[in-house]
């Protein structure tokens, strides 16, 4: 399967701070990708680079095989929902659908109309007077109705209440089921990850900490608990991601290619949420260079 987003050494700097750096990813098609990280980690920067709103400072990025926003054809293949969903406050819902129809040759008006009806939005209502959840759904409708191959969403559910959040994800997943679109969804929330994402990218402090298929990540990480031990004594194939020690006991989260045979350890699997939290914790010193999981042909 080809990569929908491919970056190599991608970096973006504003004056003296790096918003993103050393970003090398190959995100495969047909996945729902979770882009996770704390606020300010660089998620919005990465998505803005992917959609052509920003230009890289160094490195390269290709989306669906082309430079982002390379031309109308490439723009038509990528849908984007910005953070704090950008809609025109004084334009009505129907006005936004017209905007979509006029600016997108591949516009599916029937899909848009059907979705708006299902969501119960009043076409004559101005977008500025919609609730947060309704605005997010409107923005998602606009992005879906242009029938893209790739959908990028920047923290679309961050400011929504749990019910609106579930409804948004439901609509998104239904679309994925129906049209097979690849999705990259950024969030600083780690719940909902396992039910929705099958590929994960963790961004912390402008760097990628880990990226790979969720199943591969879960298969390659283990919790080890046992008598107090210095992590340096572990075999080379086992990387310690997180460690905590009492005077008698050690609790480690390791990443390993092979099963752990040492009988001193009690080995248990890790939940995706705990795995992500471990990678997101800045107190954990993650080694800089790691091979990326999830082979992409």
């Amino acid at each position, binding site marked *: 399967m080809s990569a929908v987003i491919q970056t190599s050494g991608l970096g973006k700097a504003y004056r003296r701070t790096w918003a993103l750096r050393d970003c090398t990813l190959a995100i495969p098609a047909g996945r*729902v990708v979770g882009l996770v990280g704390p606020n300010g980690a660089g998620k919005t920067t990465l998505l803005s680079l992917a959609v052509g709103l920003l230009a890289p400072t160094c490195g390269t990025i290709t989306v669906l095989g082309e430079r982002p926003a390379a031309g109308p054809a490439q723009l038509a293949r990528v849908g984007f929902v910005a953070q704090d969903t950008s809609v025109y406050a004084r334009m009505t819902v129907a006005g936004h659908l017209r905007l979509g129809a006029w600016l997108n040759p591949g516009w599916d008006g029937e899909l848009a109309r059907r979705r708006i009806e299902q969501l119960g939005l009043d076409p004559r209502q101005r977008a500025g007077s919609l609730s947060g959840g309704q605005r997010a759904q409107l923005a998602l409708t606009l992005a879906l109705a242009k029938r893209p191959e790739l959908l990028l969403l920047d923290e679309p559910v961050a400011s929504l209440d749990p019910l609106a959040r579930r409804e948004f994800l439901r609509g998104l997943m239904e679309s994925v089921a129906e049209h097979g679109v690849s999705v990259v969804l950024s969030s600083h929330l780690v719940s909902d990850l*396992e039910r929705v*994402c099958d590929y994960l990218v963790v961004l912390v402090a402008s760097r990628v900490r880990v990226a790979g298929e969720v199943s591969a990540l879960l298969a390659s990480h283990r919790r080890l608990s046992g008598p107090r031990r210095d992590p340096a004594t572990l075999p080379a194939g086992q990387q310690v991601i997180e460690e905590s020690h009492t005077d008698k006991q050690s609790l480690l989260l390791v990443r390993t290619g092979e099963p752990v045979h040492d009988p001193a350890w009690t080995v248990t699997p890790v939940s995706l949420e705990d795995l992500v939290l471990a990678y997101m914790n800045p107190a954990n010193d993650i080694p800089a260079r790691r091979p990326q999981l999830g082979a992409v042909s």
Partner: protein
Amino acid sequence: MIEFQLDETSGVATYLQLVQQVRQALRMGMLEPGDQLPTAQQVVARLAINPNTVHKAYRELERDGLVRARPGLGTFVTRSPSGTDPATQARFLAELTGWLRSARAAGLGPDDIEAIYRTAFRACFAEGVA
């Protein structure tokens, strides 16, 4: 048609939960050979999960020979996992229910009953008796 549920706190992967629920339904007779499993779209509409998860679960069930995917038509149950028909299972269920009632009437508590059951279970299967 079976309706799936998701227990997010169980720590079990979503696709495994779906697989387990199908197996359970087959065992209990709620699903019979020939029944259609819900489409990915239907599952997604109800649970708001990744459709790939549904496909993964159905692929695993197909690998175990329990279901078969017919392109354009859906995924259908082929056989029951245990190899016995639901009628046999219902008979044993009724017998066990009767035994449990008698045990309770005799004054045995839940822990006693469980201990008796586990002892018998281990003894039976350790001998390699089918």
